[in-house]
């Protein structure tokens, strides 16, 4: 596994927007799904994020990765809630005598999963279309101190470095006789200490080097810092935000009007 920011550079309206705008859009999409107990509304909100992804020219990747990430969560939730949900037991499908899918459980799982789709979909879209340095710059404009923003952003470079260093430590320790392959769980847990200790000591060394490099560039000096990348809220942002908010309101109202009552499946 290797660390890479989710960001995909494209030339699109969504990429040009200020990250703060996209943050508000995410909240606007997630909120109806979070509040309402409705499969349809969450699905509508998710479809809306897909439409936004089309505008951002990342729709294929967006849908593919959402499915890939959600599926491992989807299966256990669906099985556990469908089979064992304690809130009711109207049988829908018998697997074995005494073990059956319950309507209430399936409805509950479906609400949860569609809600996850809408909430995490919006967040993923934000990350997919926003350069991390822009995100950092706007976070700082929203009041996040540099002393928090720097570590988060520099972790993007440091984590891959530590990964390759772990590989070096692994090989070094193996050459000294540490068993790393084909060992049981207990030995694997014991291996944490010889693998992570050199990594930690190296990290302390590296941090001293970096703290000097930072100070050489005036990290703690109390002057106003300038940004290399400087996202600003423009008229495009305002227009986009207003149209998104109108769309979300209209879609919510429309969905509510077509939900059947009574509503045993949480549609």
């Amino acid at each position, binding site marked *: 596994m290797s*660390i*890479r920011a989710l960001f995909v550079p494209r030339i699109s309206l969504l990429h040009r927007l200020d990250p703060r705008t996209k943050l508000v859009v995410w909240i606007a999409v997630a909120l109806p799904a979070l509040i309402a107990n409705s499969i349809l509304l969450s699905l509508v909100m998710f479809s809306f994020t897909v439409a936004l992804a089309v505008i951002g020219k990342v729709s294929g990747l967006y849908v593919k990765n959402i499915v890939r990430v959600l599926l491992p969560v989807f299966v256990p*939730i669906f099985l556990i809630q469908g089979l064992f949900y304690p809130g009711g037991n109207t049988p829908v499908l018998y697997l074995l005598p005494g073990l059956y899918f319950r309507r209430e459980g399936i409805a509950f*799982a479906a609400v949860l999963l569609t809600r996850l789709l809408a909430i995490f979909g919006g967040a993923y879209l934000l990350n997919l279309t926003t350069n991390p340095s822009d995100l950092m710059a706007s976070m700082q404009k929203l009041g996040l101190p540099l002393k928090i923003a720097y570590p*988060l952003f520099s*972790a993007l470079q440091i984590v891959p470095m*530590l990964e390759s260093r772990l590989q070096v430590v692994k090989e070094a320790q193996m050459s000294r006789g540490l068993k790393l392959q084909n060992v049981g*769980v207990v030995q694997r847990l014991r291996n944490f200490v010889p693998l992570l*200790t050199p990594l930690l000591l190296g990290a302390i060394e590296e941090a001293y080097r970096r703290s000097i490099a*930072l100070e050489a560039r005036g990290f703690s000096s109390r002057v106003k810092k300038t940004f290399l990348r400087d996202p600003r809220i423009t008229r495009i942002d305002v227009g986009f935000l207003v149209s998104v908010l109108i769309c979300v309101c209209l879609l919510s109202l429309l969905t509510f009007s077509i939900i059947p009552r009574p509503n045993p499946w949480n549609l």
Partner: protein
Amino acid sequence: MTEARPSRLRTEFSTFGIAMIPLMIGINIVSSYLAASTPIWGDTIGSQLAGIIIGPFNGLVVGALTNIFKWITFDPYALPYAIVNAAIGLIAGVCAMVGIVKPERNSKQIGKTLLVGIILAVTATLISTPLNVTLYGGTTGKAWVDAIFAGFLAGGWPVFPASMTAEFISDITDKIITFFISWLIYTKVPSQLIKTIRR
């Protein structure tokens, strides 16, 4: 005491302390890779070590930023659990600050390490369970934990206690083992180096 607090924050977030944060985030991430083939999560070792070696507030920031980092890189679900990871770093740091955890290898220390592991597990359970229940209906995403949860539900337990017990069983394993590992690593860091860091 009024003087002590700002100066503690200043030493924990000196330029060196800040430069340590991304590296400890990296240790969290790397150790969670190592843990992938074991029954533990292992994604809080860096927060614990930052808490122990540098200080509780540094551990807190490392924990929170680790999950925010995971959120913007590869794991869209990590964000809510930032609170859990932050609490782990903070508590591990407080335990080292008040002298419960010391870098000495003796049986008394082993007992105290286990105790801190239990405290961490209780904290993690108390914070994670409401998140698991509201976000995922009680499942956690690690197969063996979810199997226990399903077992409790099948036995007629309500969702919250079932999820809490399953979460606690997984956390007690994870936190006792990871804190023990963190303490072992702590004992191996030269004491003069730790003095230099805390100065």
